[in-house]
């Protein structure tokens, strides 16, 4: 019992070290949430590109997806930090949001594309035959149906995104992982801070599953 108390005292209470965890958690959540929104926007646009008849739009979207999927997240983060924003004064937090958003967008694009293509082609024809323009039909008929079908895959992507933000330390952002690691380097106790960080990630990812599970169930009920 004494050992546990000592470990907690040493790692979290002394010098207010818990603040590394708390501040880190805040940064992790901000990056993950903002990048998820940005990733969704980019993903939907790229999915529309990949399913578009416009050859240039299609080629751009395909290239984007291949670039993102084909290179490691850490390398993308470093390139965006050191090369693209290298000579600017953009805050690191913003850089991380942009980097993870761009990264997530590539994966979301493929998920949304699959969702769009899974909707029966008669749906678009019926909508167009009623006089709906392509964009309107896409939004009210195709996307509305695709979204339900892809929720499980999107849940997966959001969970992955949250975990991927743990490499933010590469650009000296003190996220949850980095915060835990700072405590480790101060106390030379790897167990307590790292297992705590792992537990927090686990709670967060389960929370995402829970929330999306609820949304999914509610959508299914409305169809019965």
């Amino acid at each position, binding site marked *: 019992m004494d050992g546990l108390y000592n470990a907690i005292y040493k790692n979290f209470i002394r010098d207010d070290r818990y603040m590394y965890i708390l501040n880190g958690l805040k940064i992790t959540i901000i990056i993950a949430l903002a990048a998820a929104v940005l990733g969704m926007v980019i993903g939907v646009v790229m999915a529309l590109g990949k399913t578009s008849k416009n050859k240039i739009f299609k080629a751009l979207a395909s290239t984007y997806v291949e670039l993102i999927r084909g290179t490691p997240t850490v390398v993308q983060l470093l390139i965006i930090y050191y090369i693209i924003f290298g000579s600017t004064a953009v805050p690191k937090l913003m850089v991380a949001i942009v980097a993870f958003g761009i990264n997530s967008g590539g994966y979301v694009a493929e998920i949304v594309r699959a969702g769009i293509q899974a909707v029966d082609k008669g749906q678009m024809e019926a909508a*167009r035959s009623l006089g709906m323009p392509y964009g309107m039909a896409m939004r*009210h008929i195709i996307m509305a*149906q695709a979204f339900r079908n892809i929720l499980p895959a999107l849940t997966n992507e959001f969970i992955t995104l949250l975990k991927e933000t743990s490499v933010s330390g590469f650009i000296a952002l003190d996220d949850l992982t980095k915060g835990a690691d700072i405590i480790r380097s101060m106390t030379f106790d790897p167990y307590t801070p790292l297992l705590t960080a792992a537990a927090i990630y686990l709670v967060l990812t389960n929370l995402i599953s829970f929330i999306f599970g609820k949304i999914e169930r509610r959508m299914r009920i409305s169809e019965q």
Partner: protein
Amino acid sequence: MSNEDQVMIETVELCKNFGELEVLKGITTKVNRGEVISIIGPSGSGKSTFLRCINLLEEPTSGEVYIEGISVMEHKKDINKLRQKVGMVFQQFNLFPHLKVIDNVALAPIKVKKLDKEAVYARARQLLARVGLSDKAEAYPAQLSGGQKQRVAIARALAMDPDVMLFDEPTSALDPEMVGEVLDVMKQLAKDGMTMLVVSHEMGFAREVSDRVLFMDAGIIAEEGTPAQIFSNPQNERTRAFLGKVL
């Protein structure tokens, strides 16, 4: 020009190729206001493709389509306006599964025509009553039988107040006991003066309801005439062979 003679749809030498395959090889015909036209013929003769070329769901390879005198090929930018004049009913119904029946009917008038919501819903209820489905307004398509789905699809098309209705094998995907309820709705529509083009294997409907029957074979109109001419006294060898098989 009197209403009776107003040409609603006209096609001139309409051709459609899918790659090497020539599906339509020059279809020229006119559809007057209030006419009910049945298009019959063997599978693969181009009946559905012809119908789908009229509202540009398939783009014709050459030839002309006129909707109320306006060239569709020259006004592709206005295709959404032109399609509002031409309702379509599909073999597979293509109801929107994520929307309630009433919203299936009301969506396009609200979004496309930007009409007042309350007025649209009132009209949607009227249309559902007309196809005998008032009690299904709040249901989802998955809860309906095939015949009910097709009747909703007809109401959905009518909600846009089209001048012409295209029916692409509207009863082919139905269980036999449900064909009657859909045909009854179509007969009523014909009686009310709607201009209709119907691709169908329902020879009874073609004979009873239509003003004119087009027999298509291998991408052309092989023979056309009144139901009496086509069914009782077909001139073309291929018409006779076809009718011999289906009647």
